[in-house]
């Protein structure tokens, strides 16, 4: 696709420079190592492939969450979203989840989505925690605005973190935002935010060498619960 760079300069939003998210590794309940690291724009095509099958799974609102994640990642890839970032989780090189968000300004963050592609191991919880960690500890923000599109999200974010309701409209539409403040984050940190740094080199090499994507059948089995049918 030909790109008119003169016009692009108008279409592309300005950006706030973001400190990188330092990768970390988490031992999951099954003993596997979950590497959470920041995605680059170059990673987006692979991530879109991983997200795509989830767009057609109605269970737990995966369809709406995955469709929006797909659009948000594409928007970031094509320079149409301001100050967006994406973190991804990998196990044995395979993408098992993605989270994304953006900076509204220097002090306020906006959480977009959390999508666990492998389920039953609290991968979504670990990824959401990493996202909050990024906003509060590394980007030094004061607060993050959050909404949930599924009951699971509501339970995991609003209840587990004790988020405070606001009357601020979230960019995703829907209800008013909830807010994670610095204080709430540090209150919850000991029970919800874990991970080791630095990530051992062999695990980083494995994660960075190639972003692997499990088969669509496997995604359907893990998310849509099609085991044994």
């Amino acid at each position, binding site marked *: 696709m030909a790109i008119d760079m003169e016009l692009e300069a108008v279409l592309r939003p300005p950006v706030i420079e973001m400190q990188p998210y330092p990768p970390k590794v988490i031992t999951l309940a099954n003993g596997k190592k979950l590497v959470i690291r920041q995605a680059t724009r170059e990673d987006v095509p692979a991530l879109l492939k991983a997200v795509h099958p989830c767009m057609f799974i109605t*269970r737990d609102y995966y369809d709406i969450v995955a469709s929006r994640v797909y659009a948000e990642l594409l928007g970031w890839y094509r320079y149409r979203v301001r100050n967006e970032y994406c973190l991804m989780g990998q196990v044995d090189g395979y993408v098992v989840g993605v989270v994304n968000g953006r900076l509204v300004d220097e002090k306020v963050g906006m959480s977009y989505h959390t999508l666990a592609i492998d389920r039953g191991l*609290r991968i979504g919880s*670990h990824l959401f925690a990493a996202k909050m960690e990024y906003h509060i500890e590394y980007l030094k923000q004061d607060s993050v605005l959050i909404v949930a599109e599924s009951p699971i999200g509501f339970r995991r974010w609003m209840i587990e973190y004790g988020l405070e309701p606001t009357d601020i409209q979230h960019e995703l539409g829907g209800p008013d935002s909830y807010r994670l403040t610095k204080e709430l984050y540090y209150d919850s940190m000991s029970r919800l935010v874990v991970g080791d740094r630095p990530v051992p080199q062999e695990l980083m090499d494995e994660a960075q060498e190639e972003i692997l994507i499990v088969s669509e059948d496997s995604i359907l089995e893990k998310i849509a619960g099609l085991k044994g049918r």
Partner: protein
Amino acid sequence: MRDVAIIGVGMIPFGRRDEDGLMDMLAYASLKALDDAGLGAAGGAVRGSGKEPVGIEAVYVGNMGGGILQHQTAVASSLVDRINLLPAAAETVENGPASGGSAVKNGILAVASGYYDYVLVVGGEKMRDVTGWRATDFVATMTHPQVEYVYGLTLPGMAGMFTRLYMEKYGVTRDMLVAVALKNQEMGALNPYAHVEMALSREGIVDSPHSVVNNPTVADPLHLYDACPVSDGAAAIVLCPLDRVKDAKKPPVVIAGFGQATDTHTLQEREDPTDLKAVTLAAQQAFEMAKLTPADIHVAELHDAFTILEIAESEHIGFFKKGEGGKAVLAGKTCFGGSLPINVSGGLKARGHPVGATGVAQVVELVFQLRHELPKNRQVKNAENGFSINFGGFGNNVLSFVLRRVRQ
């Protein structure tokens, strides 16, 4: 009383079955059991009609929550119509989480008494129609309404308090509870019917500091992986008098003994809340009837809704002395390949606990074992006698079964 044989079994994979309703699941499990018994085309029959080929004369369905969760009652009546077993007699049996076991017992009595010859027993529950909170609340309806439920007591809460007491009195340790969880999840990973087909690692749920998220405290001292999942599922068996078993393609399994006992509704009223008297009494009855002792059992399915229950039940049944059940788990005695494998299916911990289905599913698993038809990595070698316990309330209504492979 006539000897009663199990001539057919059926089960569907437990888990979250969004696409199936309660009646769908009961029907699938029933049809599988009827096919397994060679009665797939039998249809229903009036008692004593002498119909040839034989028909199912009575159907017992164990179900605890249809009325609450699906707003549907009289599921047995619906089932006989659904799977074309009219005009067979039909009854729904509600007895809390022991509903499945109670349905099995009623089926046994019906055949043993000589009143019916061919009986279908089904257990099923559809718990994932609602959120986890509502499912927990539904299960808590078995607690005492005035002195427990109104104060917010849930089954995990009750199990937590029971565990703390049991730890203090009998020296059960967290390591012992973890060993039960690891063992049952490892076996569940091999069971295609299991809700959670995933082995756990000790590092991931205990040793690593990351376990605080992976395996959070649910009801101190119990953690997430000390509890069974909330599941959908169904299981079924077909019973007939042993002397009617002719040309069986699969080795018949006989109900050698069964027992049932109750205890106080609330734990607080028990002289010693760690004493599961109903378990002891139900097991004693079953062993007495079977003319066997705990030492004669080769494989057992216990009601491990919480890891502590597998240990406590194993002691109250008489498999181990009080205070020795946890040590036996640590020593590997109860693992696959141990001297008494317990919950080779993965138990409620991994197979799942659709409450009305559990008592029947335990019997189905034992039949698989006693027929010697499981894959090598799950088949207990030369298993001849099996035992199960279905634990209702918090031990206030307990059923036990001793099953024996019939030597042909």
